[in-house]
């Protein structure tokens, strides 16, 4: 088992191998992604009963929560990929990290905007400094920092390294930021209505949520594959295998 994992890891380091295998894997990810997202959306929109307190606006949960979860774990994945790049100098990891940043940021933005829209019927205003929304906003700032830093560097190598270092520093800070925001929130707004109380969620509401979460993670995998494949083509454009690949596409 361990040996197999090690072999997979070493192969992952080869851009050519990744490019070829990901072409085979992509359809196997796309089909369940579309399936999960469709089933989850239809179930959540049309079949789940409305929340007794929030009415139908609670159906926003089926995108808000998956997007928020994904945005947070995407940041962690980006930082881990960055660490792999820094420690083992694996170029593929740097490209994966660079691919994750814009995707993670867009899901963070999605979580924020759905949260704000959800806030209107729930609290009566578009924006409330609620703990979850505030820490999402700060996560978006962290993404902005990493992306701006990556763009500002002249050489691709140092852009990748700088982004990796910053995302690792951010990763250490995320729990601290989250904790401090939650503490600050209880201090200033003791009695706001929470969007969700996870423990009390009924089964019929929970199952579509889990389906949507799975769908969002699968979608994330597909998007990272797509972007990383582009990164491979771009960085390896001078290599023979890419040239032959381009040639074979042009001949067709």
């Amino acid at each position, binding site marked *: 088992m361990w040996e197999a994992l090690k072999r997979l890891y070493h192969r992952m380091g080869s851009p050519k191998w990744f490019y070829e295998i990901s072409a085979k894997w992509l359809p196997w990810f796309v089909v369940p992604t579309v399936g999960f997202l469709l089933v989850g959306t239809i179930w959540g929109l049309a079949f789940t009963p409305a929340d007794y307190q929030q009415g139908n606006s609670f159906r926003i949960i089926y995108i808000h929560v998956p997007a928020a979860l994904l945005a947070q774990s995407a940041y962690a994945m980006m930082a881990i990929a960055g660490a792999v790049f820094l420690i083992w100098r694996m170029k593929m990891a740097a490209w994966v990290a660079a691919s994750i940043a814009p995707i993670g940021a867009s899901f963070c933005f999605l979580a924020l905007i*759905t949260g704000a829209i959800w806030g*209107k019927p729930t609290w009566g205003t578009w924006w409330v400094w609620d703990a979850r929304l505030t820490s999402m906003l700060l996560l978006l700032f962290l993404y902005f920092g990493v992306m701006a830093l990556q763009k500002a560097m002249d050489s691709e190598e140092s852009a990748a390294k700088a982004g990796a270092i910053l995302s690792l520093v951010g990763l250490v800070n995320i729990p601290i930021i989250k904790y401090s925001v939650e503490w600050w929130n209880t201090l200033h707004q003791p009695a706001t209505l929470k969007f969700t109380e996870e423990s009390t969620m009924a089964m019929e509401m929970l199952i579509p949520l889990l389906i949507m979460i799975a769908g969002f993670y699968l979608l994330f995998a597909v998007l990272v594959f797509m972007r990383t494949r582009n990164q491979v083509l771009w960085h390896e454009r001078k290599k023979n295998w890419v*040239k032959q690949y381009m040639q074979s596409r042009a001949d067709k």
Partner: protein
Amino acid sequence: MFLDSYLFFDSFADFLAMGKHGFYVWLCYGITALVILANVVAPIRQRKKLIDQQTRLQRREKKNAS
């Protein structure tokens, strides 16, 4: 259909109205669809541009060589 009895809404108009929250719910799902679409389209376009650019470059190199 057999699932009909499990539907939460009585009519399609009800489904669109979502109680009083139709605007918010549909706005959210619309924005989500847009964000996902943008995320899917961006790498596809990027890939196309990249391949076009590189094949053009290779063709030119070949012409220069011959």
